[in-house]
């Protein structure tokens, strides 16, 4: 047991910070992460990351990755990018779990078609999971895919989909089995968003620039070649992918950075009293606790399935974001709720943290059942 970074890891972090300084507009930290998934700034930043081999250092070289066996380079990348406001837009998701799911379950043809563009920063994806009547209860999804020759015909709708407006592909879950089969009979499709019969509509929300969408599928035809994994075998692939998703967004690093900024601003403005100082120290502890737990999950993932610990760590990450948002609000000055201000963005970001990638309550359910081994709730 040791918690040091190697010389090489430290040098990489420095190099990355310099790159971010040179390539990212100032003030990015005050944005809600993912708010400009397809702006020229985000896309160009990702292309440059891709050119350095820094989008997917943890993927095999054959698919455009860096071939890293160690989890730490990718961890450092995610940490530094989140600490600067996550300028990858939707593309953190591509390299964090969509690509790994394709690596795990894809055909050779799919790997060749989909992975190199992701590693190069040329592909934009969204995920089609939630539906009007299937949120946390994903097994209740009703979108159907019916086989017709070499195609499947998709009908149904997906909601709350981030990034859909500019995406090239959707990582789509649809039901190929009976509606009562719950998780059995769920199949994954790598659906081109240009497919006829797919429509995308923004849903007006209070999240400002972070846009969520309503997707409708009206007899949209997707080729057999774009089915990921076997028919009806999507669930294990999704479960594995979601382990990466749970800890893939080190929100605690962004939160810790926001905390630094709001504390320093409050100190400069003479608003940092004893209660604020104490609360800020406590919030920083919550951020670092989340960081330690996520690091542990990263190491466990390399050796196999981190299992229940990933849910526990995710709950800690949400707590970190919430703790910082609380301090930011307590220390807020007169202009701090103006759109674009750090405290305004932190409030909205913390609201998303407890829901995006699975609700906080679901993490607690799973921690209770799988980590503490408590009986299944009635």
């Amino acid at each position, binding site marked *: *047991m*040791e*918690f*040091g*970074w190697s010389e090489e*890891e430290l040098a990489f972090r420095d190099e990355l910070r310099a790159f971010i300084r040179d390539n990212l507009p100032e003030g990015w930290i005050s944005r809600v992460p993912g708010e400009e998934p397809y702006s020229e700034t985000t896309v160009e930043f990702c292309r440059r990351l891709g050119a350095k081999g820094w989008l997917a250092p943890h993927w095999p070289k054959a698919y455009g990755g860096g071939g890293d066996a160690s989890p*730490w380079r990718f961890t450092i990348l995610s940490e530094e990018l989140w600490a600067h406001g996550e300028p990858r837009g939707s593309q953190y998701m591509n390299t964090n779990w969509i690509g790994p799911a394709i690596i795990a379950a894809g055909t050779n043809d799919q790997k060749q078609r989909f992975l190199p563009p992701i590693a190069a920063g040329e592909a934009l994806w969204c995920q089609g999971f939630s539906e009007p009547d299937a949120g946390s209860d994903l097994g209740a999804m009703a979108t159907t895919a019916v086989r017709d020759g070499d195609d499947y015909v998709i009908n149904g709708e997906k909601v709350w989909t981030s990034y859909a407006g500019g995406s090239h592909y959707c990582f789509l879950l649809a039901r190929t089995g009976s509606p009562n089969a719950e998780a059995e009979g769920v199949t994954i499709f790598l659906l081109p968003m240009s497919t006829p019969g797919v429509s995308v509509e923004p849903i007006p929300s209070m999240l400002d620039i972070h846009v969520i969408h309503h997707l409708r599928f009206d007899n949209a035809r997707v080729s057999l070649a774009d089915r990921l994994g076997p028919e009806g075998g999507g669930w294990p692939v999704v479960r594995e992918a979601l382990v990466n998703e749970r800890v893939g967004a080190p929100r605690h690093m962004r939160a810790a950075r926001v905390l*630094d900024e709001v*504390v*320093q601003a409050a*100190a400069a403005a003479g608003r*940092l009293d*004893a209660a604020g*100082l*104490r*609360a*800020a*120290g*406590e919030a*920083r*502890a*919550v951020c*670092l*606790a*989340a960081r*330690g*737990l996520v*690091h*542990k999950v990263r*190491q*466990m993932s390399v050796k196999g399935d981190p299992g229940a*610990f990933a849910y*526990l760590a995710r*709950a*800690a990450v949400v*707590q970190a974001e919430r703790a910082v948002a609380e301090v930011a609000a307590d220390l807020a000055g007169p202009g701090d709720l103006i759109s674009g201000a750090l405290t305004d963005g932190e409030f909205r970001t913390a609201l998303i943290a407890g829901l995006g990638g699975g609700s906080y*309550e679901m*993490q*607690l*359910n799973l*921690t*209770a*059942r799988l*980590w*503490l*081994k*408590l*009986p*299944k*709730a*009635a």
Partner: protein
Amino acid sequence: MDFEPSPAQAETLAGLDTLLAAHGAPAQGFDAPLFARLRAEGWLDLARRSPAGALDAVLAVERLSRQVALTPAGLHGLVLPLLFEADPGGVAVLADERGEGPVPFGAEAVLVIRYEGETAAAYRTDPSAARAVTANYVYPLAIPGSPVGAAVARAPAAAVRRRHRLALAAEAVGALDGALAMLTRYLTEREQFGRPLGAFQALQHRAAELAVSVEGARWLVRTAAWSDDHEDAALAAAYAAKAARRMAWEAHQLHGARGFTLAYGLHRHTLRLQFLSVTAGGAGRHATDAARLRWLSAA
């Protein structure tokens, strides 16, 4: 970066388990025979053996605390190496900041460490001059005797505070483990309304949040022991103190009246947690110090 114990660390911890198993049931007060064995077998010297020895000492303190081993192993394992190159023998205690309150094992102390501005100084003291107090927090508490003669050792106060925080947090993690294990078993076995308490989602969420805070405290104190950094130690102590307080409330609330009985034994963890949560100024002082170190020290 490696969260798994090294072969050497695993062997060390297995050795400690063997020692504890051979020692049998923990004593109700100061466990002098166990402390003597820990001393004789070198368990108080872990932090003296290697530059990263504070982490090994923290792992040992966690393990001892989980067994409710009532010894000053935390202070001896983590703080004394700052003052003494070799084990000075006897029992040492750390006086509180004002040097006047009761401390664990105060009645045994032949050495008392006192904060004096920027330094901490160790003095000889006479255990027969110690004054016991009536306090029911499992640790045997007493106001140690006054310093006798000149200081026999000195160290920077900040370093003593740092290592003391590691010791407190590691001790808390062991007690958190003990309390959470009892709570989990109780929620699994105790049935009401025809099902185990642990099947009620309202209680599951509370237990799960406790689990998050126990693991958070564990890895914070371990990483803080590795860095042996002032701010990290203060953050770990702040988080552990809050986790300790919360566990004291929640473990009792979820246990019902059973948790109050001496025969059941939950109090052996929760009363220690309450004590640890107020020691050295508690979460407020730890968090405020950490915040000053991070944001105000350059100012």
